[in-house]
C-alpha cells in the first residue's frame, strides 16, 4: 500500500532555509531559459517581453516594464457583443494627433498653424474635424477654426520658436482615448467565449474609469501600476503571477511557493523592492553579508567608520568566516545542566 503523503509532510520544518531553496529552485531552471526574446514582424499587435529578460525586470523591480500590457475585462453586454466591445475599445485606444494629420503648415508671418486632417483616419476613429478642433482647443487653449478637413490655429505671437513648440505639442496631443493606453484590441476567450481587450499600455488608473470596463478583474503586467492602484498586496500577487506566467511560458515548472516567497520578501517593507544591490541584498543587516555581495570595500569602510556591529546570525556571514550556518541542525546548540554533568562518569 502506497503511503499517502499527509499535509504535514509538505509543511516547512523549523529552521529550513526557505530563501536559499527558493533561490536555487528559480535559479537552476532559469539557466534553461532563453536569454533574449526575438520579435517577429506581423504577429498580433504586441509581443510581451518573455524569458530571462522578463524575470530580471520583475526581480529588479523595474519601474516600467519594457512591454506594458493590460488585459481589460468588460461588463454587461460588452463582454458578449462584439460591437459593444469595439465601442469600449475605441474609448480606450489612444489616438494621437500625428496619426490624424496629413499635413501641417506653419505661417510665421501671420502667426498661424494650418492642419489638414486625413479623412480616412478620421473615419476609422469615428471622429469629426470639429471634435478634433474642440479637443485641441480645450487641451491646449488654442483658437481653432474649422473649414472642411482643415483646422486653422491662430497664435497670439509671431515668434518662430513658440510656434514650433506648439506644433510639436499639437502632434503629441491625445485626441481620443486614454493617454498611455496604447491600442486596445478585442480578443475572445477560447474557453468561455467572453470578449476582452488587450492594450499595449499600463495606464490602469484611467482605464478602469472607462464605462463598460470590469474594474474588479482588469489587470496589467506593470506591477508598479497595480501597486499604485490596488496596494501592496495586489502588487505581491501580481509579482508572483507574472513570475509564474513567465516560467510557465517556457515550460519550466517551479513550485508556486518559491515565487510567493520571493514576492513576499520583495513587498515586506510596504513598497516594492528589487532583490539586488539597491534592494534586499543591499539592505541586509549584517555588514559581512552585504560586503560579500557587491561593493565590498564601500560596506567595510562604512562599517569601520561608524563602528557597526555584526551579530553573525545570518547565513552568508557565517560561511564567510567559516562557521556553521544557523540553518537546520546548525541552528540548535547542545547544553548540559550542571547537575547532570556530575552524573557523567569519566571513561576508565
Amino acid at each position, binding site marked *: 500500500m502506497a503511503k499517502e503523503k499527509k499535509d504535514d509532510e509538505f509543511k516547512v520544518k523549523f529552521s529550513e532555509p526557505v530563501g536559499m531553496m527558493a533561490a536555487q529552485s528559480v535559479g537552476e531552471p532559469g539557466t534553461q531559459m532563453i536569454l533574449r526574446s526575438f520579435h517577429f514582424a506581423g504577429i498580433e499587435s504586441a509581443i510581451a517581453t518573455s524569458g530571462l529578460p522578463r524575470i530580471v525586470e520583475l526581480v529588479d523591480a523595474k519601474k516600467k516594464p519594457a512591454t506594458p500590457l493590460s488585459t481589460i475585462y468588460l461588463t454587461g453586454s460588452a463582454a458578449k457583443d462584439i460591437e459593444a466591445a469595439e465601442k469600449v475599445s475605441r474609448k480606450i485606444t489612444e489616438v494621437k494627433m500625428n496619426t490624424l494629420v496629413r499635413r501641417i503648415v506653419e505661417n510665421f508671418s501671420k502667426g498661424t498653424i494650418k492642419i489638414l486632417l486625413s479623412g480616412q483616419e478620421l473615419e476609422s476613429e469615428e471622429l469629426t474635424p470639429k471634435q478634433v478642433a474642440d479637443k485641441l482647443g480645450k487641451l491646449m487653449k488654442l483658437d481653432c477654426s474649422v473649414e472642411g478637413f482643415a483646422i486653422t490655429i491662430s497664435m497670439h505671437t509671431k515668434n518662430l520658436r513658440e510656434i514650433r513648440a506648439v506644433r510639436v505639442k499639437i502632434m503629441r496631443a491625445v485626441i481620443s482615448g486614454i493617454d498611455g493606453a496604447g491600442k486596445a484590441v478585442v480578443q475572445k476567450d477560447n474557453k468561455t467565449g467572453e470578449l476582452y481587450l488587450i492594450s499595449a499600455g499600463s495606464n490602469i488608473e484611467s482605464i478602469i474609469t472607462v464605462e463598460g470596463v470590469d*474594474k474588479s478583474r482588469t489587470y496589467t503586467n506593470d506591477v508598479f501600476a497595480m501597486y499604485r492602484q*490596488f*496596494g*501592496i*498586496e*495586489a502588487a505581491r*500577487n501580481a509579482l508572483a503571477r507574472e513570475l509564474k506566467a513567465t516560467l510557465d511560458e517556457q515550460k519550466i515548472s517551479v513550485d508556486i511557493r518559491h515565487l510567493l516567497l520571493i514576492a513576499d520578501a520583495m513587498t*515586506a*517593507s*510596504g513598497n516594492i523592492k528589487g532583490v539586488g544591490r539597491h534592494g534586499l541584498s543591499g539592505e541586509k543587516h549584517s555588514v559581512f553579508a552585504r560586503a560579500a555581495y557587491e561593493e565590498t570595500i564601500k560596506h567595510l569602510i562604512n562599517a569601520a567608520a561608524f563602528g557597526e556591529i555584526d551579530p553573525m546570525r545570518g547565513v552568508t556571514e557565517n560561511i564567510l568566516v567559516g562557521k556553521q550556518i544557523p540553518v537546520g541542525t546548525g541552528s540548535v546548540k547542545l547544553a548540559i545542566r550542571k547537575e547532570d554533568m556530575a552524573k557523567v562518569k569519566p571513561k576508565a
Partner: protein
Amino acid sequence: MAGKSDHEIVPVHEILRLKEVNELLQEKHIALENLPKIMESDPQCRKLGAKPGHVIKISRNDNGNAYLYYRVVVEG
C-alpha cells in the same frame, strides 16, 4: 463580516483590534516592528482609514490555500 475587495487580485483587508494584536504578537513571539509593513498611503489602508501602528489582517488565498497574513501600518 469580511467585506469584498475591490479587485480579484486584492485579498480582503481588515484592521485588527488592539486585543487581537496583542494576542497575535504573543502567539507568534514577535514584536510589532517585525511584522511585514504596509504604507499608510496604500490604497487599501486609505480605504480602511488605518493609521500608523494599526495591524491589518489580510485574508490571503494562494491557489486554494487560505491563510491569514498580517502587516503593520507604517508612515509613508
